[in-house]
């Protein structure tokens, strides 16, 4: 099947639950599809942008996901571009409201010396995370909670460590507005992490059935408070704008 036919099939046959709630730290447990994400740093330390291509496949209660990030980032010699760390995830719906996941990130390029918010996204390294998601709520308002435990290793230059353990919790609320729009907010607490506390707000619109556009902002509260391991002064110096276009069925 050609890619165009696949996209057409995805766009024309989209059950309501294909587009599951998601945030920068919470993967959607929905249908099969593809998605392109953009995230850009805004502020005096800007100039860093990440594009991520993601493919998802749902096989009954199993959800497989492959994500490949790439970045354009500042260096001492000017802007550079390189591949981030591809990740592979498998989620299993233990029960309809509970999902267990395993996500493995692998070193993409040895030269991507940058981090946006997530420490395992770009910086050369690899690791594994166990994830547990549970969701509840109504058709109009959904809640998702995620717990995360991971072990990672990174190229050992500050602010990164040679190896680190990540413990994280994330909460998300997604509210439907009408038949095609919605708002999503999330709060993420992570340790060890380059951006340990994050608050995100996003709006979404279903352009056509199955095709969802998301735009939002990530407020790195931990970085603003000086809690990042990077040598940064506390203060509101940056935020991340993000957007995505996802097709799912």
């Amino acid at each position: 099947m050609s890619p165009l036919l696949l996209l057409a099939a995805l766009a024309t046959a989209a059950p309501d639950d294909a587009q599951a709630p998601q945030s920068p730290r919470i993967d959607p447990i929905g249908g099969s599809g593809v998605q392109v994400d953009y995230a850009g740093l805004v502020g005096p330390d800007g100039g860093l942008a990440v594009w991520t291509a993601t493919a998802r496949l749902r096989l009954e209660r199993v959800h497989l996901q492959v994500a490949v990030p790439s970045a354009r980032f500042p260096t001492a010699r000017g802007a550079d571009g390189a591949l981030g760390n591809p990740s592979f995830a498998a989620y299993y719906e233990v029960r309809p409201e509970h999902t267990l996941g395993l996500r493995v990130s692998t070193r993409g390029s040895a030269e991507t010396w940058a981090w946006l918010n997530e420490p395992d996204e770009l910086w050369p390294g690899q690791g594994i995370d166990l994830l547990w998601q549970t969701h509840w709520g109504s058709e109009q308002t959904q809640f998702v909670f995620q717990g995360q435990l991971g072990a990672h290793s990174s190229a050992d230059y500050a602010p990164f460590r040679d190896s680190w353990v990540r413990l994280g919790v994330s909460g998300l609320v997604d509210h439907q507005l009408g038949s095609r729009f919605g708002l999503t907010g999330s709060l993420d607490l992570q340790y060890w992490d380059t951006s340990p506390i994050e608050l995100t707000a996003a709006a979404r619109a279903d352009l056509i059935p199955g095709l969802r556009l998301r735009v939002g902002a990530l407020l790195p509260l931990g970085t603003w408070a000086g809690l990042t391991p990077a040598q940064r002064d506390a203060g509101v110096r940056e935020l991340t704008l993000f957007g995505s276009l996802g097709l799912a069925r």
Partner: protein
Amino acid sequence: MSRLLLLALVGCASDDAPPAEAFAFPANGQTGVASTAALTVVGLQAEPLPGADLARVVDLDAGGHIAGTATLDSGTLRFVPDAPWPAGHRFAWSLDPGVDLPHGPQGGVQFDSPARSFSTNDDLTVLAATRDARGVCAILSRELPTATEPALYLDGARMVAERAEGWDIISPRRPTDIAPLQVWCAPGLDGQWLRLRTEDGSSSLVEISYGALEDALTALYGGRP
């Protein structure tokens, strides 16, 4: 010159460690450097940030950067140009440990050091002159052929000097592909100015500093006494 001033020789030390004793070859201002000589810094305690060039070299006569390969191994940095150094040119060089970036590598430690230059021409100049227990000593920019005595003038009067020995104890790890600076001393003399005249009629003049010869040599080699 502004370019030269911008260049800084860089070494590193952690907050806890004593200042690094790094020595760079060729010495600052050295002439007659061989076309195949590698720029070498020994004793570096630096751990450059990823993405750093390690070394940057500028051709002051032709302009532009010199392409080459820089490696850092066990505290010794070597920069080997892709092609031999152009003959008769002057060069400025510096080390580049990288810079801290808000969303990138951090932790590089830098220190300032005098700008460094060298040349592949055969100009002969006096780089520094000292007055200590050895008398008045002149540090020349390159080696002189055996049995050739430099035309040194102390406050205008011809100074008879002898080649000094043992000065290179400040740098026992001097690379073999770079000739040492040459030192000529005249015991028992004192003065303020020392001039070197060459056969082609050029001359260079330096003020005599009161201090140990080793300190002057150390400064030229970029060490931190």
